């Protein structure tokens, strides 16, 4: 484990023979950062890399190692200030509450997304089941139409003939459902639109089919009178 005594990155050295020990200074800087609560390896390693870049730039401009180091440290700022900045976005050790809030929010958003996808699948399955049930009802009327002595009402005969369309209706709905499930849409979007459209379509289909089934029954009741 890195305890801050030794730098994990190799900073540039000017090669000048002076009393200032850059490696030692960087190690001390790391120790101060750790003491201020800056975590390692993230973000301390990255800050150290930045420090080295800054020192390198200063040395290339003709500054000696000591002044380059001091300027770079000043540029980066004090550990406490950095900790405050990282805390604002929830990254340091002392920000447990912020992190938990973020994790909880992310989980909640993720849960909402999953629930919305499950709802879309359930709505599609309900729609498909309802269409299939209506198709069965009309299919059961089909042999009656073939063997009955009296002809079925024209509207009923027409719908019995068109009943295959009921099996095609769930296809676009399932297609949209698949699209909604696969795409990464925000959980905040209103998901009731899909439900409203699907249920409206189901109502528009169910009403004529039920009427077509009811008409022969009405005809039979009139005959029995």
């Amino acid at each position, binding site marked *: 484990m890195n305890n801050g005594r030794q730098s994990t*990155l*190799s900073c540039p050295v000017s090669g000048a023979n002076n009393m200032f020990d850059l490696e030692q200074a960087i190690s001390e800087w790391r120790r101060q950062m750790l003491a201020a609560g800056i975590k390692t390896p993230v*973000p301390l390693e990255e800050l150290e*890399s930045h420090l080295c870049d800054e020192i390198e730039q200063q040395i290339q401009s003709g500054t000696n190692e000591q002044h380059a180091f001091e300027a770079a440290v000043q540029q980066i700022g004090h550990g406490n200030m*950095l900790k405050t*900045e*990282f805390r604002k976005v929830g*990254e340091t050790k002392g920000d447990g509450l912020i992190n938990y809030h973020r994790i909880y929010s992310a989980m909640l958003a993720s849960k909402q997304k999953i629930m919305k996808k499950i709802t879309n699948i359930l709505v599609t399955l309900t729609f498909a089941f309802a269409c299939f049930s209506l198709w069965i009802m009309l299919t059961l009327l089909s042999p009656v139409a073939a063997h009955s002595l009296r002809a079925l009402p024209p509207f009923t005969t027409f719908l019995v003939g068109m009943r295959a369309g009921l099996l095609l209706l769930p296809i676009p709905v399932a297609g949209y459902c698949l699209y909604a499930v696969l795409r990464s849409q925000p959980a905040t979007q209103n998901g009731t639109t899909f439900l409203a459209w699907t249920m409206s379509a189901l109502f528009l289909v169910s009403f004529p089919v039920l009427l077509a089934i009811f008409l022969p029954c009405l005809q039979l009741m009139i005959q029995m009178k």
Partner: protein
Amino acid sequence: MYSRYMISKELVAASSEPLILSLLSQGESYGYAIIQDIKARSQDKIQWTDGMLYPVLHRMEREGLIKSRWVKIENGRKRKYYSLKQDGKKALAKHHEQWSAVHAVLSGLRGEQYV
């Protein structure tokens, strides 16, 4: 700290994400280079501090807008390079749209003053 020619702290903070996304849309980069690039492009009017940039980069990475990788450079040193993710490209397009809308309104109002 800020001279009268420098952009306000609030605007600097608000523009940090779109500027980072725009820079990274041109290719991967690292913290120090991003700061220097923005400083040069803004002619010193935008001067990001390390304390401001890295928390923003880390937040954007957590949000899935950008990704990072450590690259070994000369002298055995390591640098953390950031690049755009697909969600970052979408966020950038949204930022462009929003900033363009603000710019259009501001330009329109400024134009009216001289009519």
